C-alpha cells in the first residue's frame, strides 16, 4: 500500500487546487476557534444573566436595620424608580462601590434601599457609621432568604426597579463609575419619564 515517491510526484498536478484548500481549511478553522476563545477571555463567568429582568421584584416583608420595630416591603416604593443594593459589612467589594453610592445619595439622584445580607446588626450599623449611609433605609436579611428569592450569589448586587416594581437591570459586583454613567443612570432617567 505504500506510495513510492515518484507516484506521488506524478499526481502532484492533479492535487494542485486541492492542496490550497488543504492548508486554508485548517487555518480558517484555527482562526475561527481562536476568535471564539479570544472573545471568551473578555467574558466574565461571574456575570450570569439574571432571570429577573423584566419580572416583578419578589415581594417580602423584613425588619429595618436601624429600626427593627419597623418593617419594609418593596410595595412601599411603588411609583418611584429605585435601587435595591445588596450589601454586607463582611463584603470587601462593597467598599469599592460605597463612595459612589454615598455620592448618589448626597446629590439625591435616586433612592437607594439597602438589603443587608447575612450580616450582624451591630457590625452593619458600625460599617454604615464608618463609611457613610447612602440608604434611605436598610433591611436586615439575616438568614439570606430574601437574598435567595432575588437570586443573589455575589455581594454586592444592585437591582434597578421601576415605578411599577419591575426589575429592569441587575448589576453583579460593584457599580463602577463606567457602569453607572453608561448603563444605570440613563436607564434610571428613562424609567423616570415612563
Amino acid at each position, binding site marked *: 500500500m505504500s506510495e*513510492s515517491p515518484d*507516484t506521488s510526484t506524478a499526481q502532484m498536478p492533479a492535487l494542485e487546487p486541492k492542496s490550497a484548500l488543504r492548508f486554508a481549511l485548517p487555518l480558517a478553522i484555527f482562526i475561527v476557534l481562536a476568535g471564539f476563545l479570544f472573545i471568551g477571555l473578555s467574558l466574565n463567568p*461571574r456575570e*450570569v444573566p439574571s*432571570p429577573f429582568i423584566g419580572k416583578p421584584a419578589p415581594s417580602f416583608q423584613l425588619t429595618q436595620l436601624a429600626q427593627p420595630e419597623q418593617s419594609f416591603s418593596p410595595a412601599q416604593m411603588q411609583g418611584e424608580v429605585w435601587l435595591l443594593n445588596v450589601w454586607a459589612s463582611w463584603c470587601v467589594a462593597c467598599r469599592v462601590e460605597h463612595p459612589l453610592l454615598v455620592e448618589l445619595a448626597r446629590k439625591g439622584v435616586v433612592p437607594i434601599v439597602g438589603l443587608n445580607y447575612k450580616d450582624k446588626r451591630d457590625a452593619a450599623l458600625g460599617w454604615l457609621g464608618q463609611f457613610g449611609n447612602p440608604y434611605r433605609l436598610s433591611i436586615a436579611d439575616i438568614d439570606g432568604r430574601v*437574598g*435567595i428569592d*432575588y*437570586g443573589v450569589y*455575589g455581594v454586592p448586587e444592585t437591582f434597578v426597579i421601576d415605578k411599577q416594581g419591575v426589575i429592569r437591570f441587575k448589576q453583579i459586583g460593584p457599580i463602577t463609575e463606567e457602569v453607572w454613567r453608561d448603563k444605570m443612570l440613563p436607564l434610571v432617567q428613562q424609567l423616570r419619564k415612563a
Partner: protein
Amino acid sequence: MLRVAIVALMFALASSGAIAGKGAVQLDNAGARRAAALADQLRCLVCQNQSIAESSAELAVDLRREINEQIRAGRSDTQIIDFMVARYGDFVLYRPPVKSHTLLLWFGPALLALAALTAFLRALRNRRRRANERPLTSAEHAEAERLLSGSSSSAP
C-alpha cells in the same frame, strides 16, 4: 454497658448536629437521598465548578437548607428545580435544558463527529480511487515485487 451507650448516643448526637448544621431540618432516608441527588445536579454560583452538594460556600449551605425544607414541605423535585431556575437561571443546572439557544451545545459535538466521519470516509474513498486511477507500469510492478519479496540486496 450504660456508659458505652451514653457515649455512643453523645457521638450520634454530635455528628448529626455537625452534619445538619444550625436550624436544619431532619429528613428521613428517602428524603435525604432526594436532597443529595438534587444538590448534586445544581451548580453553586459562588464557586462555579462545584455543585451545591460539594461546595462549602455559604450560599451552597443555604441552598441545601432550602432544598431540605422544601422536601420536608412535600414539594416535588421538579418544583424544587423550578424554584432554583426561577432565581438563578438555567445556569444553576449542570444539565442545561434543550432550548433554541442551547441546540448547538447539545448537538454540536455530534455534528462535529459526523462532519469528521464524513471527511474521513471521503478521504478514504479518494485514496482508493487514486490508487486505482493509474495502474502500475510493468517496471513498477517488478520493483514492487522485488521490494515485497524482501530481497534487500539490490542497489538503490
